[in-house]
């Protein structure tokens, strides 16, 4: 095993480089955060709690466009990873900024949705459905913003030839953010069961 380069890439007690193991560990904890919210949502919905019929008021089109945006940004960040593995930092930099652009589009659509709902009186305290809606999508949006900031920092770092391995790590995180949305979309926008 090589002992050159960042410790996150060559120290490995498990067969997985410690940097990547750490990001998977983080994501395992995130499963509890978002999973706990989804489980509570499903329990209250199955229990017939009033207010959940408001799921029909969310815009399926907006949710679908945001799903398309996140899936496409997932493609661009994995292409950034593939490019950096070949040592092409300029191409990777470009793909990372496509991904950040996708994040901005996602947040813009989300802000448009929030504005419409709030203007119609559907706020966080309207009923339990809207409490879940704003908590789950808001927490998800915070993860999107966090990912965009870290991606921007990494993009400038790789342009200087440093820490190439971080592209893969932020990529895994970004795909998880995409995964969470893949489940929030049917839950909040499609399946009014």
């Amino acid at each position, binding site marked *: 095993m090589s002992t050159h380069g960042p410790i996150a*890439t060559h120290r490995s007690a*498990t*067969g*997985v*480089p410690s940097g*990547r*193991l750490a990001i*998977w*560990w983080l*994501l*395992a*904890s995130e*499963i*509890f955060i978002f*999973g*706990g919210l989804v*489980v*509570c949502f*499903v*329990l*209250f919905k*199955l*229990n017939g709690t009033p207010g959940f019929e408001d799921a029909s008021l969310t815009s*399926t089109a907006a949710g*679908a466009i945001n*799903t*398309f945006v996140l*899936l*496409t940004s*997932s*493609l661009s960040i*994995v*292409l950034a990873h*593939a490019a950096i*593995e070949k040592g092409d930092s300029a191409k990777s930099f470009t793909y990372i900024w496509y991904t950040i652009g996708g994040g901005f589009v996602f947040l813009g659509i989300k802000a448009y949705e929030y504005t419409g709902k709030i203007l119609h009186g559907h706020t966080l305290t309207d009923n339990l459905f809207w409490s879940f809606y704003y908590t789950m999508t808001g927490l998800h949006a915070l993860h999107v913003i966090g990912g965009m900031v870290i991606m921007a920092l990494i993009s400038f770092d790789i342009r200087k030839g440093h820490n*190439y*391995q971080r592209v*893969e790590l932020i*990529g*895994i995180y970004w*795909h*998880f953010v*995409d*995964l969470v949305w*893949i*489940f929030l*979309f*049917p839950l909040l926008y*499609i*399946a009014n*069961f």
Partner: protein
Amino acid sequence: MSETYAHPNYIKIWFWLLILLALSVAGPMLEIPALTILTAFGIAVVKAFLVAANFMHLKFEKKIIWFLLILSMCLLGVFFFGAAPDVMMTEGDQWIDCIADKSCVEQRL
């Protein structure tokens, strides 16, 4: 850098994800509730698998990562089945409706 492995065809995976997205949006248009649930959540599971296996490279990961993720989901299942009876079952001798009977709240404080 990470280990070397043959990268999947990412464009092809992305294309399949978009087809699945279109199906999940089209499902409710048939207005069959069971089909809506199936197309919404069934397709979400397939999409999640495609993203995790190919984009996150989970299919190339060591077993310890799979173990970590499966353990997390099992514990989430414990949380669900642990909390479900308390939320869902509102009948029986041991059930006390604290919302209707305020005195039970005082007894527990």
